[in-house]
C-alpha cells in the first residue's frame, strides 16, 4: 500500500504535474482548445477580478497601453469633429450664405456653428472599398449606381502608396501611424485599417464622425463573418472570396440629403397664407372703397338731379376725384353754384347744353310743351295679367311723338320717350315686376314698329305697383340733337 502511495506520489504529485503541466496545456490547447478555454474560464475570470480589486494600480498599468490608445483615438476624433465644425463655420463666415446663416443664428438664438452644421450636414458615401492591407490589393468594392468606380486596383494601390510616401517622407512618431483621412475638394477618403484589412470610403460632402465608427464596425464584421476567407487570403493569391462581404460594404453606402424640399414647402405654404391674407385684406379694402365710392356717386347724382335743368349723364372716378358729365339747361339757376363747387370739391364737370322742360325753369315752349303734355297724358291700358298693346293707342302715341319732335326740332332739340310699365297688386311681386317690364317693353317695341326711331325710345318697369294701374305711361324729355342717341339709348 505504501508502495502504491509512493507510486501515486510519483505519477500525480506536484513535482511530476509541474513538470508535465506546460506541455499538457500546450497539447490541450492545440487539440481541444475550446474545451480548455471553457474549463479555465471560471477560474481565470475569478482570478482577474480578484487581482483587479486587490491591485487596481497594477491592473491599470497592464491596461494602460490599450486604453490609452483607445482614449487617445476617441479624444482625437472628438477634437477633429469640433475642428471640423469650427472650420466649416469659419469657411462660411464671410460669404453671402454665411451672412444669411449668421442672421438666421441671430434670429433663432442658436450658435453659428450649429446653424452651419445644420446647413452643411449633407454627405454621400459614394464608394466603399475593402483592401488587403499588406498587398494593397482591392478585395471587393461597392459604389453608388450613379457614381461608378474607376480603376479600383490602381486606387487601392495608390492609397497604400500615399500612406507609404507620408510615412517615409515625414516619419510620424505617433503610434498607429496610418493614413486615416485624405481630403481633396469636397471628397474625403475615410480609411479604417488593421494589418490585414483596410476599409476605405469615398465621401462627398461632410460626413458625421459616426461614419468612422461604421467603417470600424464593418471591418470587425468582416473579420468575424469571413474569418475563413481571411485565412485563405494569405495562403494563396486568390482575391475573389470576399464577394460575400458585399452586403456589409453596401450598408455603408448612403446618400444623406438635407430636407430642403420640406422646408421649402413649409416656406411656400407660409408665403401662400401670407399672400392670401394680404389679398383678402386688399380685396376687402377695395370693396369698402368701392362701396364708399358708389355711395358718394349716388349722392352727387341725387343732388344734381334735384336741381332744375340739370341731367346727369355719367359719374366716374377720375384721378382721386370724380368726373361728372351732365346736360345743363342754360336757364338753370344752379349752373353758377355747380361751377363754384368744382373749385371746392375734387370734381371735374363736363357740361353740354340742352333744353329742359322742367316747369321750375319758367313757362315751357308752348307748342312743344303742349305736344309733350298730350303724349304724357296718353295711357296704354292692359287687361289683368296681359301685356298685349292696343294698336290704336300705339298709332296715337306715334302721332303725338312726331308732333313733339317736329316742334322741338325748331329749337335744336329732340325728344326721348321712356315707356314706364305699371301693374296692379294682384298676384306675386315677382310676376308683377315681370309684367311691368314686359308691358313697357311691348309698348316701346310697338312705337318703334310704328315709326319712332329706336334710339329715341327706352323702356323700364315702375319700381312698385303702388298705384294699382295696369298701364304703360310715356315720359318725354328733350335733349340736344347731338346727344339724343347717347342719352336715350343708354
Amino acid at each position, binding site marked *: 500500500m505504501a508502495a502504491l502511495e509512493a507510486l501515486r506520489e510519483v505519477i500525480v504529485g506536484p513535482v511530476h504535474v509541474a513538470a508535465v503541466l506546460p506541455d499538457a496545456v500546450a497539447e490541450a490547447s492545440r487539440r481541444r482548445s475550446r474545451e480548455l478555454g471553457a474549463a479555465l474560464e471560471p477560474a481565470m475570470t475569478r482570478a482577474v477580478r480578484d487581482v483587479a480589486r486587490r491591485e487596481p494600480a497594477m491592473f491599470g498599468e497592464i491596461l494602460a497601453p490599450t486604453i490609452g490608445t483607445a482614449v487617445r483615438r476617441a479624444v482625437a476624433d472628438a477634437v477633429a469633429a469640433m475642428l471640423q465644425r469650427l472650420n466649416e463655420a469659419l469657411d462660411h463666415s464671410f460669404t453671402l450664405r454665411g451672412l444669411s446663416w449668421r442672421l438666421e443664428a441671430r434670429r433663432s438664438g442658436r450658435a453659428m456653428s450649429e446653424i452651419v452644421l445644420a446647413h452643411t450636414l449633407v454627405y454621400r458615401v459614394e464608394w466603399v472599398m475593402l483592401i488587403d492591407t499588406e*498587398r*494593397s*490589393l482591392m478585395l471587393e468594392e461597392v459604389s453608388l449606381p450613379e457614381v461608378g468606380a474607376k*480603376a479600383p486596383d490602381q486606387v487601392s494601390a495608390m492609397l497604400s*502608396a500615399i500612406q507609404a510616401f507620408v510615412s517615409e517622407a515625414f516619419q510620424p512618431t505617433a503610434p498607429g501611424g496610418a493614413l486615416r483621412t485624405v481630403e481633396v475638394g469636397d471628397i474625403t477618403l475615410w480609411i479604417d485599417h488593421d494589418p490585414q484589412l483596410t476599409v476605405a470610403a469615398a465621401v462627398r460632402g461632410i460626413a458625421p464622425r459616426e461614419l468612422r465608427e461604421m467603417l470600424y464596425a464593418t471591418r470587425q464584421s468582416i473579420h468575424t463573418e469571413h474569418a475563413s476567407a481571411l485565412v485563405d487570403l494569405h495562403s494563396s*493569391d486568390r*482575391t475573389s472570396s470576399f464577394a460575400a462581404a458585399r452586403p456589409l460594404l453596401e450598408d455603408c453606402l448612403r446618400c444623406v440629403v438635407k430636407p430642403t424640399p420640406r422646408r421649402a414647402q413649409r416656406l411656400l405654404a407660409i408665403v401662400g397664407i401670407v399672400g392670401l391674407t394680404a389679398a383678402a385684406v386688399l380685396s376687402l379694402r377695395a370693396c369698402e372703397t368701392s362701396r364708399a365710392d358708389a355711395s358718394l356717386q349716388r349722392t352727387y347724382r341725387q343732388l344734381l338731379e334735384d336741381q332744375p335743368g340739370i341731367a346727369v349723364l355719367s359719374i366716374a372716378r377720375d384721378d382721386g376725384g370724380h368726373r361728372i358729365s351732365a346736360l345743363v339747361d342754360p336757364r338753370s339757376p344752379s349752373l353758377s353754384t355747380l361751377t363754384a363747387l368744382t373749385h371746392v370739391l375734387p370734381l371735374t364737370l363736363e357740361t353740354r347744353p340742352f333744353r329742359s322742360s322742367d316747369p321750375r325753369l319758367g313757362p315751357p315752349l308752348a307748342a312743344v310743351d303742349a305736344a309733350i303734355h298730350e303724349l304724357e297724358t296718353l295711357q296704354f291700358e292692359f287687361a289683368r295679367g296681359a301685356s298685349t298693346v292696343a294698336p290704336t293707342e300705339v298709332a296715337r302715341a306715334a302721332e303725338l311723338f312726331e308732333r313733339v319732335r317736329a316742334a322741338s326740332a325748331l329749337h335744336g332739340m329732340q325728344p326721348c320717350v321712356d315707356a314706364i310699365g305699371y301693374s296692379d297688386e294682384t298676384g306675386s311681386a315677382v310676376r308683377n315686376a315681370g309684367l311691368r317690364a314686359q308691358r313697357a317693353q311691348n309698348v316701346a317695341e310697338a312705337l318703334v314698329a310704328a315709326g319712332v326711331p329706336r334710339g329715341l325710345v327706352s323702356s323700364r318697369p315702375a319700381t312698385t305697383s303702388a298705384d294699382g294701374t295696369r298701364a304703360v305711361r310715356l315720359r318725354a324729355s328733350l335733349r340736344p340733337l347731338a346727344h339724343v342717341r347717347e342719352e336715350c339709348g343708354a
Partner: protein
Amino acid sequence: MRRKLKVCLIGATGVGKTSLVGRLVHSVFSDRYRTTIGVKIETMTLTRGDDEVQLVIWDLSGEDEFQSVQPAYLAGAAGYVVVIDGTRRETADTAAALLDRMRPIVGHVPYIVAVNKSDLVASWDLDHAAIERFEAGAAKVVNTSARSGAFVAEAFEALVDAILSEATP
C-alpha cells in the same frame, strides 16, 4: 482561377522601368524621358493557363545618388522586376545593392532581372560576369527592349509563372 498580384519594378534611375510598363500595358514607347517621382501604378491582366492574373504594377522611382527606393512601396509584393540598363554597367551594381537592401523587407518572393535597352547593341556595356551574379537568385534574367517590345511581355510572364509556381503547394 482569378488572382491579383502586386509586382514592383525597381532599378537605377533611367534604366527604362516606366518604358517597360508603358510597352507592356499600353504598347507604346516614347523617347522622351521623364523621371518618375514616387510611384506610378498600372494594372493589366495576363492569362496563364487556367489562371487569369490581374497585375497591379508598381513602377517605383529610380535609385540614384539623390533618391532611394522607399522600402514601404515594396511591402506585400508577390514578386518584382529588377531592371538594369545594358548600356550602363553601374546600373547592375545599383540593382545588386537594391536587391541586398530589399530582400529582408519583401522576403523571399520571386524576382526576375530585365536587362533593358537590348536594341542598343552598339552601346552595350555589360559582359557575362556582370550578369552572372543575378542568375542564382533570379527566376530568370531576360534581355528586353522597351523600344522594340522584345521580350517585354515574356519577362513579366516569366515573373508571373514563378510567382504562381511558388504559390502552388
